[in-house]
């Protein structure tokens, strides 16, 4: 396989690194001013009492919206810079020749850092299996990449803190590795659409771009605009609902239906999460408010993983290359793994 080097046209803006630095300074100042500003508006300017329900909800909303939007902009930028060092082509090269087991672990970890859009799931699937990467290893990648995505991770970090975020990433990895490994052991190659096995990639030129730091900064800024532009409304609506729950729903109101003792709440949360795919940004603030009112962590984590990991659009896209039996196994194995994780956390935490 030959490598084709292409240089993108050099960016002429010499001041770009300086602008990036200034943006970081402004970001840090703004981030530290949110809390006093939200309190000042709610309690001083608008004059709500500290203990009033509406005042509490409003201060919560005015604090969380700018905080999450700032976190998203800043961290999507940082993550996108990191991702310019990875590409699906490089990931495929790294996975080539790895056996099942080790390969599943590598695929799941690389799934986190490799730039991925579920709209490209089909070419990626074909390109992986056609180059000889085992089916199960390919699935580990295809499960980890959307589940542990930047928007979900950043919002979890902003609303739940680093411990829950860490648990989420870890369980996402374990689910991707285990589900991929199981699918691999089921020898389901014959349930891949026949045309996939007949495809022969062409001359084999692989695009390998030489990127300068200016390119990386520009591309990262493009993804900030694209991602924040796409999710900001869901974030605002999700936090508004969350703020309402925060101010108006009594403490421990949800223990009975979403607490540890309600065994059926975990599978119910998984089912509820499947159709909510594109609303992950809106679902996380609501989940955060539910947990404050007595929903248990395992149930909430299961819900969020189902929202992001079991996506209806991606399943429909993958149907182009997978026969219905394999689609059913794919969805079933992930759903079972998420339910298991939910029960496990409800049991041990």
């Amino acid at each position, binding site marked *: *396989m030959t490598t*084709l080097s*292409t240089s*993108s*046209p050099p960016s002429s803006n010499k001041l770009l690194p300086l602008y990036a630095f200034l943006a970081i300074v402004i970001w840090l100042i703004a981030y530290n001013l949110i809390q006093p500003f939200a309190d000042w508006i709610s309690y001083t300017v608008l004059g709500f009492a500290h203990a009033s329900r509406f005042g509490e909800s409003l201060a919560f909303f005015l604090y969380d919206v700018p905080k999450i939007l700032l976190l998203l902009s800043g961290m999507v930028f940082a993550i996108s810079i990191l991702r310019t060092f990875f*590409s*699906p*082509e490089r990931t*495929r090269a790294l996975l080539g020749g790895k056996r099942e087991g080790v390969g599943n672990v590598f695929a799941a970890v690389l799934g986190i850092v490799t*730039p*991925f*859009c579920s*709209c*490209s799931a*089909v*070419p*990626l699937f*074909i*390109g*992986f299996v*056609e180059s000889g990467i085992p089916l199960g290893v390919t699935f580990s990648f295809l499960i980890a990449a959307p589940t542990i995505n930047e928007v979900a991770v950043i919002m979890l970090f902003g609303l739940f803190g680093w411990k829950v975020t860490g648990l989420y990433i870890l369980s996402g990895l374990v689910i991707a590795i285990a589900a991929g490994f199981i699918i691999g052991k089921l020898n389901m190659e014959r349930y891949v659409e026949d*045309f996939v096995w*007949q*495809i*022969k*990639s*062409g*001359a*084999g*030129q*692989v*695009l390998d771009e030489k990127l300068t730091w200016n390119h990386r900064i*520009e*591309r990262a800024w*493009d993804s900030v605009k694209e991602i924040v532009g796409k999710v900001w409304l869901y974030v605002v609506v999700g936090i508004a609902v969350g703020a309402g729950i925060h101010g108006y729903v009594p403490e421990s109101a949800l223990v009975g239906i979403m607490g540890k003792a309600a065994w059926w709440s975990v599978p119910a949360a998984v089912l509820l999460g499947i159709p909510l795919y594109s609303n992950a940004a809106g679902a996380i603030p609501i989940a955060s408010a539910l947990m404050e009112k007595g929903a248990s962590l395992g149930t909430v984590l299961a819900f969020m993983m189902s929202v992001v990991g079991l996506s209806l659009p991606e399943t429909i896209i993958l149907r*182009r*290359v997978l026969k219905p039996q394999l689609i059913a196994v794919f969805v079933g194995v992930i759903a079972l793994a998420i339910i298991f994780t939910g029960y496990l956390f409800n049991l041990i935490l």
Partner: protein
Amino acid sequence: MLTIKVLGSGCANCKRVEQIVRKIVKEMSLEAEVIKVTEYPEIMKYNILSTPGLVINEKIVSTGRIPAPAEVTTWLTSALEIA
């Protein structure tokens, strides 16, 4: 005469790449044929893993993102010089 191919099965980003390319071809008044490649077996001949892909005279110049108009102009200019 340039042959420009936009690879992708009709996703939103693929359509935007096609629009950008057509606009620039018009602005530079190039003699070029812009072809949309939407069938996977055909797309995979270019050995790409993410769409949209942009191919100028059978050479891949971009995959998995929407290139800036300035980039497309540069690629088209250099393709003209080679041809």
